């Protein structure tokens, strides 16, 4: 498919919010924010660990770590944290396959853990992640980084680093795509039709 000219409208039911270039720039900006807010690289700075929430939080965490290393020359350990077994909506949906939890070799004890996810919506995934985190160690503090915040929170949770705020209708869906999982980088907005 030929690339869509910049600025041309997508079909009404599917709109590109971020292109591949936008995704790269957004991640770079988030990396700078993390470095600044955590004083990474400064003397006496506490250890920072990035934990991606599968599926798409994992590649995002890896990319963020790469950019952080580019800008600050600090290698931040990266892991993944599967929250499936901690969700409170398991009985409302078909059985989910498990993702992978893989903590970096140094663990997360006393580290500043930054949870990384692609889209922040109701906040329930993050609540589950906080529960899961409690079972694998005791971080010094926990922060949250998301590529897109689409609103509609059902819990008092907010992100510390947001790539892009996107006001959405409840009937809409936001999908972040990454080359590692989907073959290309983009953020798409889908209109499902009802109540849009």
């Amino acid at each position, binding site marked *: 498919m030929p690339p869509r000219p910049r600025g041309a409208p997508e079909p009404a039911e599917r709109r590109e919010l971020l292109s591949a270039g936008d995704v790269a720039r957004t991640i770079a900006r988030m990396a700078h924010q993390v470095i600044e807010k955590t004083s990474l690289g400064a003397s006496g700075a506490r250890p920072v660990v990035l934990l991606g929430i599968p599926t798409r939080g994992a590649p995002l965490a890896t990319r963020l770590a790469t950019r952080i290393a580019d800008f600050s020359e600090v290698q931040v350990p990266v892991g993944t944290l599967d929250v499936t077994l901690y969700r409170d909506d*398991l009985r409302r949906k078909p*059985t989910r396959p498990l993702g992978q939890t893989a903590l970096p070799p140094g663990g997360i004890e006393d580290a500043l853990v930054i949870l990384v996810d692609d889209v922040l919506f109701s906040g329930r995934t993050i609540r589950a992640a906080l529960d899961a985190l409690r079972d694998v160690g005791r971080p010094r503090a926990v922060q949250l980084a998301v590529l897109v915040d689409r609103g509609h929170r059902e819990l008092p949770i907010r992100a510390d680093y947001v790539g892009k705020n996107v006001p959405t209708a409840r009937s809409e869906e936001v999908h972040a795509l990454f080359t590692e999982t989907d073959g290309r980088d983009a953020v798409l907005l889908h209109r499902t039709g009802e109540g849009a």
Partner: protein
Amino acid sequence: MKHLLGTEGLDPATALAILDTADGLKRTLLGREVKKLPTLRGRTVITCFYEDSTRTRVSFEIAGKWMSADVVNVSAGSSSAKKGESLRDTALTLAAAGADCVVVRHPASGAAHRLASWLAHTNTSVVNAGDGTHEHPTQALLDMATLRERLGSVEGRRIAVVGDVLHSRVARSNVHLLTSFGADVVLVAPPTLLPTGVADWPVGSAGSLRVSHHLDAELPTADAVMMLRVQAERMHGGFFPSAREYSIAYGLSEARAAMLPDHAVVLHPGPMLRGMEISAAVADSPRAAITQQVANGVHVRMAVLYHLLAGEEDAA
């Protein structure tokens, strides 16, 4: 999936999902001090055992508890079954009392299926933890999990199932599951301990089933040897002349184990009759995966409970 009654007819994709979940759970809990997940909080699992069991009952109990379900154990000897209550009434009582899942072991083949049919109109799931000489699906799944860990895959592998096939629900469940995953199974037993019509057993399309009476001939090509327990409690009559003779012909001695290829694995569902079915030295050798089977049993049963109880309530 509402019930797990057997491996015959168990869709390979579902079996694979259970095995992958078990693997994921094992990795999730690895190295953790507190092995407890909140996944099944508020769900009630009742284990209802009409036959004695240590490992299966304990394994289900631990699995349920590690998933935060409330687990209640009922054994026939201390239940109303002793007063003459029928299995049907016991099942309906357990469902009415709020059981989300009944794990049943029963000496009668088909008991779990009957139970599932009586509970069809309720939300209660049934797991077959062994019914007579019929099926023991979670044992087959944990054997498969162990073989996957040891051999990578069972596809194209030759698995010898040795001993009392006639009375073995473990053998039946394993034949269905292993052949559906592409293994070539050979049943090795004296003619008296093989069921009639064994050659016509339904077999998964990906693998094959064969029968042999000569253990020594099968060992050099076996990737895994699954020893079975000689079920004396089900034997009403002479199936073999003496324990010693059985041991000489079908026991896995050290000399026999030496005939196996280096990579071959030895499994036993337990409890073992050391010295008769398997020599102590073989049972304790690195080749034996017997304690690994028990450990995998907990994760497999956690995965089964997860697939039965965690999904959408009205999902079939």
